[in-house]
């Protein structure tokens, strides 16, 4: 399944890219699993996602938790807690 994944702030810096299209293996069913899969994939992912509790996500434009399903979605954004205002 092809999934668009985008990264923001220090997650983007550590990944070295702003977005990519991933061919997601079966069994990676929710946000937490995606984060774990990215952390295990390579050194950049290991650095970006070393502390999964500091990662927030939006799934198809809606704020999501670690347990949010990603089956059939088009895009996931991964980022640190926001600091606007």
């Amino acid at each position, binding site marked *: 399944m092809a999934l668009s994944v*985008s990264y*923001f*702030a*220090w997650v*983007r810096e550590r990944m070295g890219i702003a977005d990519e299209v991933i061919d997601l293996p079966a069994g990676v069913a929710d946000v937490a699993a995606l984060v774990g899969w990215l952390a295990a994939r390579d050194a950049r992912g290991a650095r970006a996602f070393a502390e999964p509790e500091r990662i927030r996500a*939006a799934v198809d*434009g809606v704020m999501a938790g670690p347990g949010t399903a990603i089956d059939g979605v088009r895009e996931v*954004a991964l*980022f*640190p*807690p*926001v*600091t*606007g*205002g």
Partner: protein
Amino acid sequence: MIRVAVQPAAIDVAGELDLHDAGGHGATASFVGRVRGEGELTELFLEHHPVLTAAGLGELAHRAADRWSLAALTLIHRVGAMAPGETIVLVLASSPHRAEALAAVEFLIDRLKTDVMLWKRERFADGREQWVEPRAGDHGRAERWD
């Protein structure tokens, strides 16, 4: 009238006030946030999501408009690189009732810190860069409104 914008251009506070004032409302409360020049900060960079940042601001604005009786609401957030003293965010809320205008501004500025996809990175005179960490107090202030 609700006006929401996410812009890399400098925020024209007086111009926005004029736009917002067109109706001559009873009470206008506002908040202007600016880049502080502490600790030899030379640049603040604000990263945003091309779609979700504006959507989040729009949702907040409509939530405020549902909750309080507002004649006009302006919510402008700057993004990209800015220098100390420059305006990051402008909130204007007008209402026939001063308490509603003030409460709406306070709600919006508290929620902006926790609900909208924006990330601050600081650069200092020695070249060092760091992403700003959220402050524990921000979440406490934002939750007062739940």
